[in-house]
């Protein structure tokens, strides 16, 4: 029997009424004060998807696509205008407090920690808020301290922590009550490469070991590739793609990168669909348009010119794949 979905959204709609002051002089200002002019901005437009328990899903889209709004609706912070939303069988807008015990949220650009106090104080407060018994709280905190390497920073005021340390504390804080789902909104924003790697590893491990469902928004494809197995792409509040990352690559992969280390100092490969990206002594980097040429053809052509010492074939970066998807959506929306 299939487990009930952890998250199920059907035809979710959410719009905001944004004030747009009328331009002009005194009269316009008076009008803006007494009768403000508002514009309706559709953030989410008939969005539907479901997530199984334990899945790690990346939720991707350009700025303003509706990702954060969707997460806030799922967490019960915002009320949907239309559509149905169920998280762990609960209706977030109506059962927010009940749901809060079972989900965790991390908003990368916001903080749930008290800036002037050490993380230990926030953890103690959250223990009360989430009604965690004393011994259980100590056990969870010890486990998270060990897993997230928080020991040396637990008693340091948050304002003295680095961004990476703070983010580890934020994620630990959101996991303290052992939630079944974690909603993460850009958890690695602003972090350096090594801090990002640590956060990704921690998230992956927490989900894999404890079966925590992850829904993660990020503009960093490294987060998506290293943490998630499935990607949902939205654009202007609408679903563009929902499926495994590998399928997304296959569907939108139009090029491959081929690097050839040859015995000959230079290779002259002038084939249709092949572009030389860079060429150094004994090393040539090529981009192969797969609809025109195959990688095998290019390798054959290189071997015909010189013995080959080594070669590497890479997919186009996921960034490029997602950009292609956005571009297609933009083209589609401008046509319609």
């Amino acid at each position, binding site marked *: 029997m299939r487990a009930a979905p952890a998250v199920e959204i059907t035809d979710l709609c959410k719009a905001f009424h944004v004030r747009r002051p009328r331009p002009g002089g005194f009269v316009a200002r008076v009008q803006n004060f007494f009768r403000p002019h508002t514009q309706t901005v559709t953030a989410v437009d008939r969005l539907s998807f479901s997530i199984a328990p334990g899945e790690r899903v990346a939720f991707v889209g350009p700025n303003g696509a509706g990702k954060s709004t969707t997460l806030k609706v799922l967490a019960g*912070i915002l009320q949907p205008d239309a559509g149905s939303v169920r998280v762990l069988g609960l209706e977030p807008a109506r059962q927010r407090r009940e749901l*809060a015990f079972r989900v965790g949220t991390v908003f990368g*650009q916001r*903080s*749930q920690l008290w800036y002037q*106090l050490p993380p230990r104080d*926030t953890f103690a407060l959250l223990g*009360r808020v989430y009604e965690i018994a004393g011994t259980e709280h100590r056990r969870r905190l010890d486990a998270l301290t060990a897993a997230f390497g928080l020991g040396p920073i637990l008693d340091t005021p948050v304002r003295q922590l680095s961004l990476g340390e703070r983010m580890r504390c934020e994620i630990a804080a959101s996991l303290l009550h052992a939630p079944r789902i974690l909603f993460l909104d850009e958890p690695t924003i602003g972090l350096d490469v090594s801090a990002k790697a640590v956060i990704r590893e921690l998230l992956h491990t927490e989900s894999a070991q404890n079966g925590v469902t992850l829904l993660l928004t990020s503009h960093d494809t490294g987060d998506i590739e290293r943490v998630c197995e499935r990607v949902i792409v939205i654009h202007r509040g609408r679903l563009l793609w929902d499926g495994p990352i590998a399928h997304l690559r296959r569907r939108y992969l139009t090029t491959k990168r081929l690097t050839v280390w040859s015995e000959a100092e230079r290779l002259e490969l002038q084939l249709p669909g092949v572009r030389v990206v860079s060429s150094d002594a004994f090393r040539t980097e090529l981009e192969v348009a797969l609809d025109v040429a195959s990688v095998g053809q290019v390798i054959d052509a290189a071997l015909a010119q010189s013995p080959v010492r080594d070669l590497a074939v890479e997919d186009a970066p996921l960034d490029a794949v997602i950009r292609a998807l956005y571009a297609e959506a933009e083209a589609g929306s401008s046509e319609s």
Partner: protein
Amino acid sequence: MRTASAVSKYIAFARVATALARRDRGELYGRMLFFAVILGVFSSLWRAVAEAGMPIAADPRLLVWYLATTEWIILSAPPVHAELQESIRRGDVVCRLGRPVSYVGAAFAEALGLLAVRAPVLAATAWACAFAFTGWIPPLAPLALTLPLGFAAAALIAAMYLWIGLLAFWLEDVSPVFWVVQKLLFVFGGLMLPIELYPRAMQIAAAWTPFPVMLAGPASFVLRQSAADSLTLALEQAAWGGGIAFAVWWAFRRASATLTINGG
């Protein structure tokens, strides 16, 4: 059991706020210094007025103790509206809204936590300054009554500031509202002078507002040197507290329904 657990959550918020207040002592010291200055200035002023033979309808020493009490209440009430506005402006409010706890309840508990640190320190400062400038202490029974009633009054003011802070869900800047309400509190609350000294029309107008129970009410025990009517004041404070609580609840309910989180 559930009620105890719910109460313990809000106590935890209050405790965090007290920890913050104890760490951030600079603001408290600033308020204590301001206290000493303002009482020094006004005690000289009331003395000069009395010596000049102008009728001020009360003993200058009583007026200094009255002012010490009203200033104590005003300075003890934490300006929670500013913190709320910043949280709403930055969008940090989103982290708090996702918790299994009432947002306004937690904010008010934090305000009470701050108040619990400020009020005793500032009360001691107020009494010490008032004694230093007058060389006199009012009867202890009415003076002691000002403590619980003054604390309740400061809590009412904090709740009113909380309501002002919630307006940040609609307004870009709530400080104009704060300034207007604060000036009304100063005037109709009787910050500088007892309301009994106001013109009749002003007294009637003040009676229709919640402000007298926030300042003049508790301070008048010092003035009258009597503990009479304390229960009436406590009931009036409770009634206005209910009204403010309703306004806060309604504002938050409206805000949650039409919430727009700044910054995505």
